[in-house]
């Protein structure tokens, strides 16, 4: 580990970029100002989650698009982040996510900072599901925490909050439970989050959507 990681050069969208070898394509792109839609990716995770299925890119010489968060850079690689095949996959994934998203941007406190709004813009598709029938989850909103509100109906199951929760709270309060459409971020026994939470609100900072939001008058730096 003492040896410096060598850098490699690759082409992305016609632009020559450099990245440390072993870096995943997604981070190489983001570091060079090229945005690829992503929700679940976190730099400090040893293994990419690869759950959101949005960061599709096309690589020259490969038959099908590949997720940028799982593919390490290689010298001389020619990458296209705006290929039609890749965008088609990303759009379908995004539309499926939005088909069960309790869309209410005007009254959502993540309005303006929401990753979903950004992705919709980049993919040039609507936030409202058009192709797929809307199927909402109708789960209760958890207001039990003094600092933040958890609305599972706006959750995209990216798992970012689960990861940061584990880093901050040794035992980990948040996690995944149930199966299929019922799958949700929850606590042990589906109890209110307020109970065992340390109120570090790291999960709120990690949330790319409006599922975890600070309550009115509470700042992300507040500690209860």
């Amino acid at each position, binding site marked *: 580990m003492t040896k410096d990681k060598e850098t490699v050069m690759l082409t992305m969208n016609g632009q020559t970029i450099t990245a440390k070898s072993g870096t995943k394509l997604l981070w190489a792109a983001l570091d060079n100002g090229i945005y690829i839609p992503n929700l679940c990716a976190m730099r400090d995770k040893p293994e990419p989650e690869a759950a959101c299925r949005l960061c599709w890119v096309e690589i020259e010489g490969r038959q099908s698009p590949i997720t940028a968060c799982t593919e390490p850079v290689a010298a001389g690689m020619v990458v296209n982040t705006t290929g039609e095949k890749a965008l088609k996959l990303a759009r379908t994934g995004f539309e499926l996510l939005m088909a069960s998203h309790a869309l209410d941007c005007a009254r959502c406190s993540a309005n303006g900072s929401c990753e979903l709004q950004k992705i919709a813009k980049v993919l040039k598709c609507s936030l409202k599901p058009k192709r797929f029938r809307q199927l909402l989850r109708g789960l209760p909103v958890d207001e039990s925490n003094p600092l933040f509100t958890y609305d599972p109906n706006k959750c995209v199951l990216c798992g970012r909050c689960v990861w940061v929760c584990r880093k901050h709270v040794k035992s*980990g*309060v*948040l996690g*995944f*439970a*149930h199966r299929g459409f019922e799958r949700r971020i929850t606590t*042990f*026994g589906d109890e209110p989050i307020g109970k065992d939470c340390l109120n570090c609100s790291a999960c709120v900072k990690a949330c790319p959507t409006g599922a975890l939001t600070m309550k009115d008058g509470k700042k992300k730096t507040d500690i209860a």
Partner: protein
Amino acid sequence: MTIPEPEKSLEEQNRIIQEAGQILSGFSRKRESLIPILQQVQSRLGYLPREAMTTIAEYLKVPAIDVYGVVTFYNQFRLNPPGRHSIRVCLGTACHMKGGYITLDAWKRRLKINPRETTPDREFDLDTVACVGCCTMAPVTVVDNKPEAQVEPTKVDGILLAFGHPVDTKDKEKSESR
């Protein structure tokens, strides 16, 4: 939503922790032991009470929510004690076409519980199955391992009556007429 689990006395809680502990001692503290542990604990206790789940989580040094996540993911694990009588409503294709969901609704209404739950008196537990292989009898409900044919809501009342379980609507009518 919390686990709809009946209240337990301190004695019972301690017994659960003790029994889970006995099973745990035979396993290494590795994450991959989780499912075999859960299976053995469930076969001993009949279900996975929260005390057992927290004991297991502590032993394996994993967050309790991860144990809960596995338990809620697999159908084989149950969070509620089994009732004296098991009610399994078939929702396979044939039963679905014949109104299996209506039958399920009737059971839910009569027993006042949801699938995968147990009545507070521990008389009945309700669950769904995907197919029991006797589709000509649809809609089927398996009552204590015996498949019952053409279970329409009226038959639900009949089965409950046979168990000596008073049918709820009549109770209600009685109380209302009083």
